[in-house]
């Protein structure tokens, strides 16, 4: 058994038999011709035939991979008709008195090199588009047929690279994975594989003599196993089963509203900690982001992130979410996180120490930088601000005052912002007890059950000795959640849960009965929770 590593272009696990995809030998001969006019006519006919083929491919692709991904064939058609392309071919025929095949191949090479030389990753990949249409023309001119090799079920296609028309022509019912020696995550293999829902790995140095061998393709981490042993096969079969279940869930509940049988609706959001997690939010069809942890901005460098850096990150998030709510939590770090440049003293009890909102309210400039960046970003989407670790009413009032000051500043500088929602995390026993007062000052509550449970049960979650005393469903916690929801509704604001308990399927029904308005969970839990809620009365 041999193992190779490449770049994972799309996830999923496939076990199958390798089919080496060979491009037809495309040796183009440079042939002197007597009649340039008739060569140019050959080119025109080939061009017309190619347009015809691309029309058919477009129709097929629209059905299989949707309009957006099929659009590449429309672009190919336009490239074929491009004046520069056509003029280049005709000029070569005229000036060198050579055959159309050569003129096309040379033109294709030139344009392809032009794209490859751009300093843009996306445009570099377009070089293969130009190659693809040129090869199509050459095939037509040479009289070769446009066929796809007959392959058997459970095939893993291995190739140096795959052009768009090649991936679309493959009988997808027989293909279980793509493996290419070249290519990037921007290449067509990747893009189409993602839409076709087939695992794909690119840029992997597999050898040439693999045709017919069994292989396992792990699209999750980019590994390919050639001729795997029994144990590996068994392990991956399990993994495959899990993936299949996940995919089924995706199909069934993606795009559906989160509503019980009796019509009660809940906002189902996702918790994430960085910009790279955004795709998981969209893939799992969360209706918004209920907790966007902003700490990553402070962890990624050796110094405080500037207002501009923060602004761009928040803007990117709200724009990507395109109008769906994004609740961003302000800085929530403490002495337990090793961020040297903050200069935090070592503490005996960091959980009870100088952290989160406490740092923010004593280091106003730091806090105002974050708040300003958030307010500026609010103009670009649906953003809300949430502060952690609240214990007293004055803390909340102080934050509101700062926000007010910043809004005035921005208005005077004519920098746009929206009047956004402002809420607090309920994660301390104190905030639960004064929830009634807090509810009159904010637009929403989000219950941070992880810390709330620690502080209320007085248990350190990191200490396994205490496991026997720990009960995540402790009646004290459940009572507190009810209190918070009641206080919220009394003052007409909404209440949600962003802690781990929100994803506990055993409690979903209870939460709904308590009157919870929102649940924000890790992305992979979105669809299982939706299924649970939809199955409730």
């Amino acid at each position: 058994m041999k193992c190779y590593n490449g770049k994972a272009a799309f996830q999923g696990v496939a076990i199958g038999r390798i089919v080496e995809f060979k491009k037809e030998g495309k040796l183009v001969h440079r042939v002197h011709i007597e009649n340039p006019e008739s060569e140019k006519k050959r080119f025109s006919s080939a061009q017309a035939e190619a347009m015809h083929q691309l029309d058919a491919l477009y129709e097929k692709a629209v059905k299989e991979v949707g309009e957006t991904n099929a659009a590449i064939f429309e672009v190919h058609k336009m490239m074929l008709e491009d004046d520069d392309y056509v003029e280049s071919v005709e000029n070569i025929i005229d000036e060198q008195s050579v055959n159309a095949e050569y003129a096309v191949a040379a033109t294709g090479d030139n344009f392809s090199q032009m794209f490859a030389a751009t300093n843009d990753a996306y445009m570099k990949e377009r070089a293969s588009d130009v190659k693809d249409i040129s090869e199509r023309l050459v095939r037509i001119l040479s009289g070769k047929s446009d066929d796809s090799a007959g392959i058997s079920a459970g095939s893993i296609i291995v190739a140096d690279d795959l052009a768009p028309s090649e991936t679309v022509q493959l009988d997808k019912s027989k293909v279980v994975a793509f493996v290419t020696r070249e290519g990037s995550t921007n290449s067509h293999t990747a893009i189409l594989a993602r839409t076709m829902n087939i695992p794909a790995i690119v840029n992997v140095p597999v050898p040439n003599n693999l045709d017919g061998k069994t292989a396992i393709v792990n699209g999750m981490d980019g590994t390919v196993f050639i001729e795997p042993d029994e144990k590996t096969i068994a392990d991956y079969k399990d993994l495959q089963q899990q993936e299949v279940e996940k995919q089924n869930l995706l199909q069934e509940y993606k795009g559906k509203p989160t509503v019980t049988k009796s019509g009660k609706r809940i906002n189902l959001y996702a918790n994430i900690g960085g910009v790279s997690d955004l795709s998981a939010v969209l893939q799992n069809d969360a209706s918004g982001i209920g907790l966007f942890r902003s700490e990553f901005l402070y962890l990624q460098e050796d110094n405080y992130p500037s207002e501009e850096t923060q602004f761009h990150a928040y803007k990117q998030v709200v724009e990507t979410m395109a109008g769906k709510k994004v609740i961003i939590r302000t800085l929530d770090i403490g002495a337990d996180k090793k961020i040297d440049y903050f200069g935090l003293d070592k503490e005996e009890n960091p959980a009870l120490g100088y952290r989160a909102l406490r740092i923010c309210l004593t280091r106003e400039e730091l806090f105002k930088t974050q708040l300003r960046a958030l307010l500026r970003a609010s103009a670009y989407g649906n953003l809300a601000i949430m502060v952690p670790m609240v214990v007293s009413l004055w803390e909340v009032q102080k934050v509101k005052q700062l926000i007010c000051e910043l809004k005035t500043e921005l208005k005077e500088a004519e920098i746009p912002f929206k009047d956004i929602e402002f809420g607090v995390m309920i994660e301390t026993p104190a905030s639960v007890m004064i929830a009634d007062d807090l509810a009159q000052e904010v637009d929403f509550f989000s219950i941070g059950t992880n810390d709330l449970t620690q502080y209320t049960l007085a248990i350190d979650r990191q200490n396994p000795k205490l496991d026997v005393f720990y009960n995540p469903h402790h009646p004290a916690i459940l009572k507190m959640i009810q209190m918070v929801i009641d206080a919220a509704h009394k003052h007409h604001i909404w209440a949600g849960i962003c802690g781990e308990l929100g994803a506990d399927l055993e409690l979903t029904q209870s939460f709904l009965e308590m009157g919870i308005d929102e649940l924000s969970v890790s992305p992979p839990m979105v669809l299982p929770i939706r299924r649970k809620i939809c199955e409730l009365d």
Partner: protein
Amino acid sequence: MKEFEYQIKDKLGIHARPAGMLVKCAKACTSKITITKDEKNVDATRLLAVMGMAVKQGETVNVNVTGDNEEQDFDKIHSFFQENL
């Protein structure tokens, strides 16, 4: 002659799809439409040339519309940029 400056908002810049649509739009105009970035000019009806400019998000291009019908063509092209890029 009419012209406008435009800063690209689309995350992917002028990628294949809008480039194709832009070329279609430019071909539907009788005026000559030229796109300029960093002193390099390109005829907006030439798809490969437009794509070859590799215009990215945040970059600014100058669009020049010259011809008998430039008023209408200017509006067409300007709207196209605003709606798609």
